């Protein structure tokens, strides 16, 4: 957990909707909540393939990727997403996930590299705080 004080620039977050899942209410709410918390949010919109997500993450040099998925396809899609991220050299990005993810799927996702899973009913502030506290500092000093 990083000292929040040392950050002087806005956290950049990519909010992505992988797969065919069209429920974007949660993603949009999260995007606004993060913006209201002072972060710069890039929302990819729907129907993102793992390649698209990785490309967006690289080009935008985001600190955090938030994957929102309510279709149940997370166990199939997340490994592919992580493979793309690794291939692109994005090892220090914080990846979090939200949506209808059953609790028994949380450990497998964490093993892949998901830092936190925010299930249904998670208060916005919980996710915002986690991201604020765990987003990597990129240096450049």
């Amino acid at each position, binding site marked *: 957990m990083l000292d929040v004080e040392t950050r*002087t*620039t*806005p956290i*950049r977050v990519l909010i992505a909707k992988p797969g065919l899942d069209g429920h974007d209410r949660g993603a949009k709410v999260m*995007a*606004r909540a*993060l*913006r*209201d*918390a*002072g*972060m*710069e*949010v*890039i*929302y*990819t*919109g*729907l129907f*993102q*393939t793992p*390649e*698209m997500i990785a*490309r*967006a993450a*690289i*080009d*935008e*040099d985001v600190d955090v990727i938030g994957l929102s998925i309510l279709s149940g396809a997370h166990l199939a899609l997340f490994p592919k997403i992580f493979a793309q991220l690794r291939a*692109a*050299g*994005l090892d220090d990005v914080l990846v979090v996930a939200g949506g209808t993810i059953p609790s028994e799927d949380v450990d497998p996702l964490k093993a892949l590299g998901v830092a936190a899973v925010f299930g249904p009913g998670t208060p916005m502030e919980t996710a915002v705080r986690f991201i604020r506290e765990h987003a990597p500092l*990129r*240096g*450049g*000093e």
Partner: protein
Amino acid sequence: MTDASVDQLVERFRSGNRAALSRILSHVENDKPAGLRALAALYRETGNAYVVGVTGPPGAGKSTLTNALIRAYRARGTTVGVLAVDPSSSLTGGATLGDRIRMLENFDDDGVYIRSMATRGEMGGLSTAVGAATHLLDAFGFDVIVIETVGVGQDEVDIAELADSTLLLQVPGLGDSIQTIKAGVLEIADILVVNKRDISGADDLVRDLRNMLRLGERRTWTPPIIETLALKGENISGLIGAIEKHAEHLSETGELSQRRERRARQEVLRLARRWLSSRLADILDEPDVSAMLQSLVCREIDPTRVAAEVARRAAREQARAN
């Protein structure tokens, strides 16, 4: 970050590594020493790209138009770097950036690069970072750089400073009629684009724009009015033609180098001002100066004396730093 690692990053940038471009852009945007060092190293490799500014009111279809431009440019083998600029919230400092969705069909095309940037509370619209980002995209090798801005506040004026050709988008029936086009905005446009030409009122809009141009001050270049339907890619070739014509005009009349000189001047001024003003606030906190402020409050000395002292100290500091 050590100088050596910055240099490594710059080398990767030079070899065409996209992640290196992105990372250097971040350092520059965040005003980090690594960014300044990288920019200094790469600046001599700039000067080749043609910069197109796209501005207009929300809802005019800027992103769709930019996407259509990308498609058309790519079809002729031209590489494109895009900076999509959106305003940061003055309240929270955060921002929701970029309509990337409409541009993501290029996700596997290395000839396209899209970066979203927030204004980050810069007074007067576009941040200095946008200019620096333009240099980086230029050095990376993109043929054309498109800067897309929201077009509220002072943005429109700034964009003309950064762009070789500035496109002003208007859309019929958006509720803001010609009368509300801010003073000065029409003058900086090199090409007027009437998008969504299939909507009723398009002809009226074109006519109104023509009239306004006629009434405006004389210029060596009369901005053409190009009608498009960006969603269907209609007349994008006409638009690119107009941009190329404008580019020709600029180089034939020598205006291109004039503009670029002006741009360099503005950039230097802006950077210098920023660096100075960050010093000034600190100087006001120095004990001697603080004491002077107290005297000022008691009406023992006047503001210009204090200001002169502050300026003197800032200059002295800068000289010492060099």
